[in-house]
């Protein structure tokens, strides 16, 4: 990407303020092997519903109507394939057909295109459908040139969570072991849905503060059931939890590995020594105590447990 991507598209994100070094260190400014002039060799397109600070860094800013991401992506897919597009539907997106055609033209002409999509796409109306649409668009553009799409990850090692769960269970998130083997079903086993329906009867929360971010019915359920929080700080969630355990801060006083959003694992180099144990140590100790209790499955099937 750094060496080849000459068309960089940010969709539903504001990297200038949320990922301040994304432009300078990774995607826009660096001089690459095939982009010797750095920024001058790249075209940057920003797609968003409002003008953010990132607009200044963009060559082209496409302001779309809120909640129309899926429609824009689908129209782009149609134009890529040369299909008929209904002018009434284009009008609803807030863009003109010329703007959309120009974008598709640039996409096809690019030697290597990349679309970074933020929460403005993946967390608004349409959610999974939007992510799916942008990934499909990227996949289809590979009929013409090299194209990729990548989510702009917010939290430090959320990419690591995807990678570790994929490696150990075969699925990236929303996994249930209630039958003794991993099953993946977002909507059924995703946290907000589980909590809002009241399906879980205990929760272990680490590296997150759902008490500050989740919908109220989900928070209410966390307060009803025994919730255990591991966190370097006493958080909103800790206050409604039965148990809070203070842990060392990842990367500052806890060593280990973290994944960059492009799935490059990096070693953490802590500068401080924490008076608290690491999350890893606490989870392991909880596991040791649970291990000696009678197993809930009479017959433990062959599972990923053997990996560890």
């Amino acid at each position: 990407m750094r060496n080849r991507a000459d068309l960089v598209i940010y969709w539903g994100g504001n990297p200038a303020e949320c990922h301040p070094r994304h432009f300078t260190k990774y995607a826009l400014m660096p001089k690459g092997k095939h982009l010797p002039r750095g920024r001058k060799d790249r075209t940057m397109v920003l797609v968003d519903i409002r003008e953010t600070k990132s607009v200044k860094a963009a060559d082209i800013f496409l302001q779309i109507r809120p909640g129309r991401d899926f429609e824009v992506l689908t129209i782009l897919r149609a134009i890529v394939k040369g299909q008929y597009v209904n002018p009434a539907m284009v009008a609803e997106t807030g863009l003109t057909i010329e703007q959309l055609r120009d974008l598709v033209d640039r996409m096809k002409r690019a030697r290597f295109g990349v679309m970074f999509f933020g929460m403005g796409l993946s967390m608004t109306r349409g959610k999974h459908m939007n992510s799916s649409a942008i990934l499909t668009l990227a996949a289809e553009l590979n009929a013409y040139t090299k194209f990729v799409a990548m989510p702009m990850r917010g939290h430090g090692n959320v990419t690591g969570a995807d990678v570790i769960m994929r490696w150990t269970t075969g699925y990236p998130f929303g996994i249930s072991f209630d039958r003794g083997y991993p099953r993946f079903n977002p909507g059924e086993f995703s946290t907000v849905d589980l909590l809002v329906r009241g399906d879980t009867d205990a929760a272990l929360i680490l590296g997150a503060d759902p008490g500050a971010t989740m919908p109220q019915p989900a928070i209410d359920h966390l307060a009803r059931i025994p919730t255990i929080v591991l966190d370097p700080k006493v958080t909103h969630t800790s206050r409604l939890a039965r148990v809070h355990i203070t842990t060392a801060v990842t990367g500052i006083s806890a060593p280990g590995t973290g994944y960059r959003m492009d799935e490059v694992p990096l070693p953490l180099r802590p500068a401080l020594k924490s008076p608290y144990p690491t999350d890893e140590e606490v989870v392991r100790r909880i596991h040791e105590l649970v291990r000696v209790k009678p197993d809930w499955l009479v017959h433990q099937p062959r599972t990923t447990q053997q990996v560890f």
Partner: protein
Amino acid sequence: MNLTVVKNATCTFCGCVCDDIELHANSERIVEAKAACILGKSWFLNHTAERAYPSALIDGREAELDDAIAVAAEYLDKAHLPLVYGLSNVTCEAQREAVSLAERLGGVVDSHTSL
């Protein structure tokens, strides 16, 4: 004052995970984070090695770490469908342990990705 210098330190505040930060720290706090952005600076400079919080809380009261771990294990073992959630601001090593625990419990494991 003697400062420890950590070169090529890794910032885990956002998904960029920049690994070219130079940290200057005394025994208690990081005093300088070179090359870090504004978000990274506040991330590094606002976390200290002080004992700012009790080791553990049980029902809101201060408790010993060992007791808290025992109570946590008891709750999780008794549950029919425990949930292990979060995993974003922890190391891969901790994530691996968490998945392993979820499997042992016959529970659900999930991250911020599902939000």
